[in-house]
């Protein structure tokens, strides 16, 4: 491979070849999320405050889930995890990620309340808070279960969890997050 001159460590071809498969999955999951939004487009356009809420709320699951996935993966690499149920690393990481997710969702509802009242499209604070908490609860339960399951499965089958968990979890967080927001809107009889 190496010619007389030095070949660079990072090549354009290599970056594209490693990147494309994951991006194809991201595309497909993104389109699924988009279709869920599209099926309720008229409701959303009539309630711009919910449009402000969506991008930040659906990110929480993906962000904290990726952190959880990265921590579990590092714990596997260090040999700290051998048993799923009674392991402090798994337990505490899940609890800590849930705390971060719930606190962030409260902060999102406060910020969205302030922004939407400033823009004159406000909704009552308790409704925004209820939507955030219900949807984040659904999102975190599904995403964390999937993260722990994928991390353990890829460890068992000898795949590096760093390569499999993180890209998938961010997309899954968007998907479950949007579904969770609509479930919350239905439960609260808003749509």
């Amino acid at each position: 491979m190496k010619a007389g001159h030095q070949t660079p460590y990072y090549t354009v071809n290599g970056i594209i070849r490693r990147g494309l498969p994951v991006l194809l999955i991201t595309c497909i999951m993104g389109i699924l999320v988009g279709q869920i939004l599209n099926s309720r487009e008229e409701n959303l356009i009539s309630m711009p405050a919910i449009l402000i809420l969506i991008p930040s709320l659906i990110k929480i699951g993906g962000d904290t889930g990726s952190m959880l996935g990265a921590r579990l993966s590092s714990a596997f690499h260090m040999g700290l995890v051998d048993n799923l149920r009674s392991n402090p690393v798994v337990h505490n990481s899940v609890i800590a990620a849930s705390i971060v997710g719930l606190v962030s969702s409260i902060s999102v509802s406060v910020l969205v309340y302030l922004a939407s009242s400033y823009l004159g499209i406000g909704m009552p604070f308790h409704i925004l808070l209820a939507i955030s908490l219900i949807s984040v609860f659904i999102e975190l339960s599904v995403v964390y279960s999937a993260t722990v399951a994928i991390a353990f499965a890829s460890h068992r089958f000898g795949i590096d969890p760093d390569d499999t968990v993180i890209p998938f979890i961010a997309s899954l967080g968007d998907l479950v997050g949007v579904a969770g927001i609509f479930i919350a809107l239905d439960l609260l009889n808003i749509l």
Partner: protein
Amino acid sequence: MPSEPQRDEDIFESQYIDKYLSEYASISSIVREALPFELIATVGGVVAGIILSGMTDELEMIPGLLVIYPGVLGLRGNISSTLGSRLGSAIHLGLITDLDRNNPELMNNIYGSLILSVIAAIMLGILGHFVTLALGFESAGVFKLVLICVIASFTSGIILSFIAALMAIGMFRFGFDPDNVVTPSIATLGDIASMLMLFLSAKLVVMF
């Protein structure tokens, strides 16, 4: 705790592991490290949401725009955060030391992520158009959707590559580990930049 006498190294090692584990896996230490980043990220998300809520005219005029929005943000986040993390590794390896346009390691990383942005945007636009039609919804047409995706991803890609490179090199010079700073900041800025560029490219396409 062991009751029978052990060799000193064993005791030392088990104490060390216990101490390390209790530090590494304590709930409060994880929350303390992760919460500030997540709170900043939610501010970025709310800014992106405000831009989205200002796009209602475009959303009505371009059927299918709402379908491609999560994909555009997802692709941007994915491509830019892998770029940031590769730049971090390259800087740690000493392959990149400053913002030098003749450095192949730096430029290959940037060109690679820009080409990826364009290919993925084309896939996203085509997929968005046909899946929307297949589900019986209206679409603005494959050409318009692909055009919006490509313009939005390419322009936000240029902005974010520049910021990622500048930030990774700068942070390293000032003694910070770029891995800890660049990826979360780029994820937050990426949402804002790609939503803004999506808005502007939708406005541009509406004009024609």
